[in-house]
């Protein structure tokens, strides 16, 4: 029989306030095999760990149970302590009496009783633990960044600078993302393109960076250090090598009716197009849904005018497969659809979103930066911004979270208007103005105090388009009155949400996603840039709303974590793998069919598990009809022992 030591943590008062730790210790002492039991205020502290190490030696322990916080917090800590004491680290079991007892049960009796039972289950399990030895796996020293916005570009640049090759996969024809669409940036009012385009060029020119634009992730296999990923390079119908980017093709293209994605549909583009002037790569693509030649076989004007013969109408999608050690998700955001917000009359040309305003005020935009009403091309006499459209909205149609960037970009928009056109009156309807950031509150106050922007606390219930102007049925909460405000142009600070495709990407990478489609971090505070799936990292708004400075900071943090992984030559593998007992195997090979990793080989009427490939899910152990297959660390006997201990 094992000699087991049980250690119960107070976690300050986190556990001890609700759970009677002394009672847990006394109860543990009565369990078979327990030769020592003790409690301590903070077991995770150095002194706490030393207490365990000492006890292993003093009592000749062969198994350790720690009743403390979640194993997701400190399992590694206590395993390392056990290893220091000369025990195999897998002879440690944790019973989670903080997250599962003291923090959720107010009644001390309930909490203590349950802690005793959970500790008993861990003791029962540790009796059956066997020493396990992790294997090693190689690390492919190459990273893949999914998304070529500022988050992806910055992460890629930082990793590339450290000397590792990085590929960026971007679904649109150019890198740059949302930041490329912005006019100025808060709180400094520096030009967005001026600070972004050099980075885009750097990324394209960097010897360690490979760009795959107009491309998507097709398939993901493997795991941390050894992902095999297939990328679909969508047919551009333009040869990247031959194209000189002269632009003659789109000048001659007779199709001029496709809405421009980059200009938020405010103007039309041609069928062959470059999304914007500074696009990287500066190579056009043909929109096959619009091109006359691709649809009917006629036209081909672009091909005729292209002197370097770069137009290739029979180009096909290309699949490339590459190995990576780490994957970074940097897929960014979109504004939510305003379909369900009929009261704001978004169908009126004079009601636009924040991103549409960016294009309208941008010198490179559809009006050359001239602020006009899209309905009658007249200069507006007044512009009204409405905050929190779909943000902080607990009804099903909106988003429960704060989109974080809108208060500040609205202050920016308002200042830009007042600066350029002092005669235009600017109103802002807000619920709260949120300005937590360096120089943010100063910026907002400047908009109100120096630029004379009229802030109104209140919401707009309905917008009525009356042709000449819009009437806003609204409430001024501070004035305590209902009012009908007439204005010429309305800008809706529309909520942002993760791009729709992130669900598919997360699912391919088996990375978790939350109820709002934001990627989940491995730990909200201590591992904010790692996904719970090893080898998958997060950068930018895919993880939660953030502005440009925060995105760039996070991108750097992500890169540091990725570099930390890529510098390793070998990784320790999870030793909790499946194992087949050849004496019991009847050779039915049912296990080989359920293994998602192809880790089980069928050979000579018997199966063998490839430990390097097995990830330890346990599907095979349950499938095996003869009880030959089992999972180390979570064996049939161990789990049954836990069931028995709980039900005793």
């Amino acid at each position, binding site marked *: 029989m094992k000699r087991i030591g049980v250690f119960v943590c107070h976690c300050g008062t986190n556990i001890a306030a609700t759970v009677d730790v002394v009672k847990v210790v006394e109860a543990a002492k009565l369990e078979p095999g327990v030769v020592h039991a003790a409690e301590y205020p903070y077991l995770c502290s150095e002194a706490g760990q030393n207490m365990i190490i000492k006890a292993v030696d003093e009592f000749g322990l062969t198994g350790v149970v720690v009743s403390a916080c979640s194993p997701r917090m400190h399992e590694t800590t206590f395993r390392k302590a056990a290893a220091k004491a000369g025990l195999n680290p897998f002879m440690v079991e944790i019973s989670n009496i903080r997250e599962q007892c003291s923090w959720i049960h107010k009644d001390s009796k309930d909490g203590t009783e349950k802690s005793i039972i959970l500790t008993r289950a861990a003791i029962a399990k540790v009796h059956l633990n066997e020493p396990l030895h992790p294997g090693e796996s190689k690390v492919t020293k190459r990273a893949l960044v999914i998304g070529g916005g500022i988050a992806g570009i910055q992460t890629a640049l930082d990793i590339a600078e450290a000397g590792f090759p990085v590929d960026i996969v971007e679904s649109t024809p150019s890198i740059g993302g949302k930041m490329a669409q912005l006019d100025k940036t808060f709180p400094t009012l520096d030009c967005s393109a001026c600070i972004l385009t050099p980075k885009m060029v750097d990324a394209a020119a960097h010897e360690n960076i490979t760009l795959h634009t107009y491309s998507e992730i097709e398939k993901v296999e493997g795991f941390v250090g050894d992902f095999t990923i297939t990328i679909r390079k969508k047919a551009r119908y333009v040869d990247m090598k031959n194209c000189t980017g002269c632009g003659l093709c789109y000048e001659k293209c007779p199709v001029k009716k496709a809405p421009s994605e980059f200009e938020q549909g405010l103007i039309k583009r041609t069928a062959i197009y470059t999304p914007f002037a500074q696009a990287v790569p500066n190579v056009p693509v043909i929109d096959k849904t619009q091109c006359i030649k691709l649809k009917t076989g006629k036209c081909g004007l672009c091909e005729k005018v292209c002197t370097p013969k770069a137009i290739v109408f029979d180009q096909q999608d290309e699949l490339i497969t590459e190995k990576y050690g780490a994957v970074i998700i940097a897929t960014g955001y979109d504004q939510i659809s305003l379909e369900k917000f009929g009261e704001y009359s978004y169908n009126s040309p004079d009601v636009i979103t924040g991103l549409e305003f960016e294009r309208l005020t941008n010198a490179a935009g559809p009006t050359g930066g001239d602020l006009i009403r899209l309905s009658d091309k007249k200069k507006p006499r007044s512009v009204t911004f409405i905050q929190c459209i779909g943000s902080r909205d607990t009804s099903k149609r909106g988003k429960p979270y704060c989109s974080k960037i809108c208060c500040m970009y609205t202050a920016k928009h308002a200042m830009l208007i007042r600066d350029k056109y002092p005669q235009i009156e600017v109103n802002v309807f807000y619920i709260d103005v949120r300005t937590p950031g360096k120089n943010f509150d100063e910026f907002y106050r400047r908009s109100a105090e120096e630029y004379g922007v009229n802030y109104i606390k209140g919401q707009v219930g309905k917008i009525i388009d009356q042709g000449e102007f819009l009437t806003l049925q609204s409430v001024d909460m501070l004035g305590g009155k209902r009012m009908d405000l007439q204005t010429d142009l309305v800008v809706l600070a529309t909520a942002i949400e993760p791009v729709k495709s992130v669900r598919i990407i997360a699912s391919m990478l088996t990375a*978790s996603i939350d109820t709002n489609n934001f990627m989940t971090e491995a730990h909200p505070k201590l591992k904010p840039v790692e996904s719970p799936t090893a080898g998958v990292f997060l950068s930018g708004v895919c993880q939660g709303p953030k502005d440009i400075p925060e995105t760039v900071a996070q991108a750097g943090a992500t890169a540091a974590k990725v570099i930390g992984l890529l510098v390793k030559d070998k990784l320790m593998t999870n030793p909790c793998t499946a194992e087949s007992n050849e004496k019991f195997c009847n050779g039915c090979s049912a296990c080989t069919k359920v293994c998602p990793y192809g880790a089980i080989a069928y050979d000579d009427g018997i199966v063998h598990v490839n430990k390097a490939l097995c990830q330890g899910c346990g599907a095979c152990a349950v499938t095996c009809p003869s009880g030959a297959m089992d999972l180390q660390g979570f064996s049939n006997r161990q789990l049954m022992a836990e069931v028995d201990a709980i039900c005793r």
Partner: protein
Amino acid sequence: MSVGEFKPLVVAFCCNWCSYAGADLAGTSRLQYPAEVKIIKVPCSCRVNPLFVLRAFQKGADGVIICGCHPGDCHYSTGNYYTRRRITLLYSMLDYLGIEKGRTHLEWVSAAEGVKFATVMNKFVEQVYELGENRRLEDWRCKS
């Protein structure tokens, strides 16, 4: 909620990647759910052999709940699909044995769904309370 002296015993199998993390989040967020629930961690819901469920009932559990990642979100890609099929079969077998349907439950809880975890546990325990003690499958020979 309580009926007489009866205090049910509920075993919850939670997968490491989603539901166990969801339970942790419920804990960190201080969301109350009944102490009747005792969690056993498994790497994936597909590690739960239906025999474990039967064993729990045999040993006196009044309810067994299995929690895994949402379909399509399994850390091991396909594990929870196996769970879904196995537990569906188990449901019909338990039904055949005369074990009330409400005693076994399969639920998807992600790592971000602390609130859902607590809600699911509250609901399930209440349901088990209504069903009363498990007398049909409990094996008195197993009692020490």
